[in-house]
């Protein structure tokens, strides 16, 4: 395992659920880029799953929240006595020759790995880009829930920020902006939002600040703050931020299940050719289909 200074204790606290949310977010960003920590997380999550399976009979989808706080806690000590026998039985069972691996209770019909081919045409919504789905169209269409679709439509791909290099010396606000956007580009949206909020208070009419603040808040799951900042960006009249803001205001509305507001914002986005490569028009068409 490649070495990392963080060590396995950090991964253990992550898997055990004893980290604060900011710490958890920071560690996730770390292990996405750190092979050693990722392997530790994966191994400890496996260990947690095996222990939970043995003690609590967890066999896949439980729909349950993290175990802490459940009245099952008292079982842990007594169950430890059972673990030895349980693990032994499990090891024996899984190693029997010809044993059939447990089947997932769900029917699976396709996989995203590996994609067979690039789609010939741009499909209307993200799920249509799923590589080679093999379920019958009629079955899949009837199975897709309205909420499931809304959930996917509300997913936000944050627009990329490309820094402009200038020869002149940056003022303090420009430096603060660049620092915040360094967090943004690295996916640290909470830190980005905190930095941009300071700037937004100093310069509330700066459309670019309001725009990226709105996106950062959206990615940090603060819909009301995101709406406020994006609306200020939209009201600024400074293109392209005032135009692009409408596409993301639609995403905010979709998260709130406000389809009417989402459609209204998308109409403006389509009119102004905002949003990534025709996404606004595709999303609007799908939305109208569902509303109808």
């Amino acid at each position: 395992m490649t070495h990392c200074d963080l060590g396995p204790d950090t991964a253990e606290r992550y898997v055990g659920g004893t980290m604060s949310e900011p710490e958890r977010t920071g560690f996730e960003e770390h292990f996405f880029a750190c092979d050693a920590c990722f392997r530790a997380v994966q191994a400890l999550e496996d260990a947690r799953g095996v222990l939970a399976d043995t003690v609590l009979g967890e066999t896949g989808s439980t729909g349950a929240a993290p175990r802490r706080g459940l009245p099952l806690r008292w079982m842990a000590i007594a169950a430890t006595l059972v673990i030895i026998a349980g693990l032994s039985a499990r090891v024996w069972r899984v190693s029997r020759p010809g044993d059939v691996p447990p089947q997932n209770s769900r029917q699976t019909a396709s996989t995203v790995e590996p994609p067979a081919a690039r789609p010939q045409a741009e499909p209307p919504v993200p799920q249509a880009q799923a590589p080679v789905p093999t379920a019958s169209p009629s079955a899949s269409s009837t199975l897709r829930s309205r909420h499931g679709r809304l959930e996917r439509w509300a997913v936000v791909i944050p627009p990329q920020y490309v820094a402009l290099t200038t020869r002149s010396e940056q003022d303090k606000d420009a430096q603060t902006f660049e620092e915040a956007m360094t967090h943004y580009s690295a996916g640290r949206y909470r830190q980005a939002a905190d930095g941009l909020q300071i700037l937004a208070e100093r310069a509330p009419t700066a459309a670019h600040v309001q725009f990226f603040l709105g996106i950062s808040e959206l990615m940090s799951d603060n819909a009301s703050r995101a709406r406020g900042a994006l609306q200020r960006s939209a009201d600024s009249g400074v293109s392209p931020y005032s135009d692009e803001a409408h596409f993301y205001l639609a995403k905010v509305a979709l998260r709130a299940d406000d389809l009417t507001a989402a459609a209204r914002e998308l109409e403006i986005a389509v009119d102004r050719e905002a949003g990534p490569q025709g996404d606004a028009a595709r999303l609007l068409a799908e939305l109208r289909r569902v509303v109808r």
Partner: protein
Amino acid sequence: MPETRHLASLVGRVAAGDPQAESELVEHFAPRVRAMALVRTRDRDLAKDLTQETLLAVLQAFRKGQVRAPDRVAGFVCGVARNVINNHKRRRLKHPETSLDEEATVIAAPEREDHDGQARRQLMAKALAALSAADRQVLLLTLVEGLKPGQIAQKLGVSADVARTRKSRALKRILEVIDTQSQNAPVRHFLL
């Protein structure tokens, strides 16, 4: 960092329409996204579905060339994954009946990851069985119950130092087993 450069080149190839690059990116990030989703939801099936949601959204962005800072690929994927997971949790709170189960017929998790996951868990079961009962008990209280060493010490009637030592020893041993196994296994991830 070679891996960062490699990932950046993969993103460029995806934008150029290379399906092999898409496969490599999926193979690299799927286990990471899945681990994150599993820790945050404690639901294996849901974690699979959320992983698919994330990968589809990420691939779509890569295909369209929306990621213009390819040296930040890992952070980008992590951000999208968190977004997808939080989005699902929020909607589930609003609509408890909402389930991604219905989507599973259309979008399924990588089967090889399932297979790899089963193999890893079998190995882990053996590693756990080889621990002493006391060490295993501490791991159970740590990972399943989410207790800290002080709380474990109180529960077991031992000192906090003893609980901490047992935990560190158990962690070290199971990670060594997994590490040894992974060195013997075919390489499926980019090495640092």
